[in-house]
């Protein structure tokens, strides 16, 4: 895993840090899923940026494309665990090749998953995951939540 540190941001490039060929929504459905990406990389990277008071920049370009469900599950879980209020000012998306993904994440995923968070509709987990972080009352707590 290569997370490139710069002065004001933690950078995550999906092609080089995760996979060129991303998969479906859930771990049970196929390799390199959105669920897996969230638990192996996105959650920890966001926490690192949050603790350092930096942005997390996620670069979606140069892969073989995405299923919208991969992005929905990965970034949706981030909203569920940290809230739109915390994620929105700290997360930047680079998607020059398919700019509509950025729009979809910011417009649809954010609002859908914030509603889920407020209604406590827990995300489905289809594999065992090690402890991951959630922000509860402004405190980062790590455990196996589901």
């Amino acid at each position, binding site marked *: 895993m290569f997370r490139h540190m710069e002065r004001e941001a933690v950078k995550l490039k999906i092609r080089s840090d995760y996979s060129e*060929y*991303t*998969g*479906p*929504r*859930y771990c049970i*459905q*196929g390799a390199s899923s959105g669920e897996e990406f969230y638990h192996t990389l996105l959650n920890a990277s966001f926490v690192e940026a949050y603790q350092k008071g930096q942005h997390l920049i996620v670069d979606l370009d140069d892969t*073989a*494309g*995405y*299923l*919208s*469900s991969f992005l*929905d599950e990965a970034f949706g879980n981030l909203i569920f665990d940290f809230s739109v209020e915390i994620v929105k000012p700290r997360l930047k998306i680079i998607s020059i*090749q*398919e*700019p*509509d993904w950025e729009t*979809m994440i910011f417009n649809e995923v954010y609002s859908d998953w914030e509603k889920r968070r407020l209604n406590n509709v827990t995300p489905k987990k289809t594999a065992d995951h090690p402890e991951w972080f959630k922000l509860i009352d402004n405190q980062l707590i790590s455990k196996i939540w589901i």
Partner: protein
Amino acid sequence: MDLIIFPCIQLSNAIAILDIIITIVIAVWIGIFIQRNFTTVRAVKEYFISENQEIRNNYNNFLEGIYTGDAKPSEVQEWFKIMTMRIDIYEDFLKKEFHVHPKMSKQHNKIKYLITGSDELNEQYRSESFSLLTPTKTDLHKIHRDFTIAQTRLVVEINKAKNNKRKSAK
């Protein structure tokens, strides 16, 4: 007494000669400049229209595989990525070149989200091919129709459009 312009040309003849000269100048101007611009604009329009047709053919072939359940799940996202870039570039150039308002990418994105977000594709992701359930197909038919309408409208708009560069050069 007739006004003498040249020693041997009367005013009426001078007007006739001037009329001929103006007619020739206008004819040359039309022939050289207007026709050249028209031909150039027409060629550019033909290019955009043929690219539109190419996208339509490519799209129809792809969706035929989706409808019949022959499409490979692993190839769907790359196809959508390539098509997204193609349509985005096409529309960007078209907007710069002509006063048109293409809506293909909007419909294309709806199709992309519907298929790549479907439970059917995700659940059959490891399979050699996947098939959509009837409710998803029904939604796809509707957006596919809207996409085709957007493409057809665009051809009409291109044909009616004036060239941006010629307008801004005036």
